[in-house]
């Protein structure tokens, strides 16, 4: 009996692992790719698993939530860089065409 009473508060005093929900929201609304949604689902798992007493499962979901928030951010960053390259390429190509135009005139 005494042991049980001691064990219970020990567990509830521990903080649950980070669910990265804020970052999931941020990357879903600010980055264009829907990977952030996956991160939100994992964030939900962190909370449910932790409250159900599945602490290891909560930790795994926490890692996945973090991973997918980064994937979402990374995909947005990659898209941005790709776009920048296209713009630079387009500007350069445009300049090249412009130069040709001026040559032929």
């Amino acid at each position, binding site marked *: 009996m005494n042991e049980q009473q001691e064990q219970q508060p020990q567990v509830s005093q521990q903080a*649950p692992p980070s*669910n990265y*929900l*804020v970052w*999931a*929201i*941020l990357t*879903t*609304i*600010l*980055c*264009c*790719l*829907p990977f*952030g*949604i996956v991160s*939100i*689902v994992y*964030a*939900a798992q*962190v*909370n*449910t698993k932790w*409250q159900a007493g599945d602490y290891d499962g909560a930790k795994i979901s926490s890692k996945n939530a973090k991973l997918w928030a980064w994937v979402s951010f990374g*995909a947005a960053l990659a*898209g*941005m860089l*790709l*776009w*920048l390259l296209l*713009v630079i390429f*387009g500007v350069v190509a445009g300049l090249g065409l412009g130069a040709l135009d001026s040559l032929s005139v």
Partner: protein
Amino acid sequence: MKKLLKGGLLLGILAAAALFFLLDPGKHEIFPRCIFYSISGYYCPGCGSQRAIHNLLHLNLAGVVSNNLLFLPAILAIAYHYLHPLLNRKLNWKLPNIFYLKNTPWIIFGIIVVFWVLRNVSFYPFCVLAPN
């Protein structure tokens, strides 16, 4: 090293803010278009956020809301995340960390998915949700 990284990050954010303040993402080609929209032709939950940032920096709240209804709530959620431990400590408030309640992620998930579907419906009143 960490200080340098933080300084660089701050500088990057300031530069981006200046760019988003000076140029309207709806009118200039240098702002990347949403990949999801480019591929599928459908709006994603984040479409309109770049224009929303531009509008927010110009304090045009109507513009923010009309470009992305969830943009302001998302900003407020992040503000809450960082402010609530501060307020609890400084003012002895007892604000809960709402992001760790059991149903919060599912409610947010539901809101975003419903928003995602409805903003792609092309008739009134749902067409209001599409970025303009």
